[in-house]
């Protein structure tokens, strides 16, 4: 079984910086929505996989790591749109027009659960 390192949301930027410094590549960011938002950041170096898990309340805000990993903006826009994760300061923010899914659904929070 793989390891998932749990960190607080305030440590994200420093951990990401460290990862970048260690020459890790961001493999993906994913979100699972149960009673909390469960964010998993995966980093890959050659054949080595590191997973970092952050648990968030629904209304909690989190910093974008697009300043560190420029290409994170795609993942962040995706989870922002599909799960309603409040990500701050994304380098290129589509503001909910990333997938342009049907807007009427988002009122009752339906959309926010998929992905």
């Amino acid at each position, binding site marked *: 079984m793989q390891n998932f390192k749990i960190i607080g949301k305030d440590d994200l930027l420093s951990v990401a910086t460290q990862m970048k410094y260690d020459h890790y590549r961001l493999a993906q960011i994913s979100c699972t929505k149960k009673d909390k938002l469960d964010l998993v950041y995966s980093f890959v170096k050659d054949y080595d996989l590191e997973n970092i898990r952050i648990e968030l309340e629904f209304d909690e805000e989190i910093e974008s790591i697009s300043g560190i990993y420029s290409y994170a903006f795609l993942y962040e826009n995706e989870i922002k749109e599909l799960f309603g994760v409040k990500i701050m300061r994304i380098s290129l923010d589509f503001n909910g027009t990333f*997938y*342009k*899914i*049907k807007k009427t*659904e988002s009122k009752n929070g*339906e*959309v926010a659960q*998929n992905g």
Partner: protein
Amino acid sequence: MNMIKKSPWILHYDGSSCNGCDIEVLACLTPLYDVERFGIINTGNPKHADILLITVSVNEQNIPVVKQLYDQMPNPKAVVAVGICAATGGIFKECYNVMGGIDKVIPVDVYVPGCAARPESIIEGVVKALGVLESKRKANEE
């Protein structure tokens, strides 16, 4: 003399597809199937096309696009829905972002089944669409 049967030009639009039917549509153009035998050209431009081949269902964002393309095609025109997703939504039917069959957006003339539709089926569907075009042209003239 009606030439539309001898030179149907197609426009292919790939909706929210899995690519399976798309590459089969492309495969129809290639030496093994060579639809150019029937004068079929894949124009890639709605304004030149007679037949709109839509592979797979549409999502919210595709609806205006498909409508636009359909509107831009000059009459007579026919629509062929390729693949079961284009007919009913198929396996994607239950996805939140999929609208189901193409016929919810534009009128469809021929449905081609298959997941993915085989080139033979697609050729068959296009040939069926030719009959539709023919009758539409007649209706136009009257």
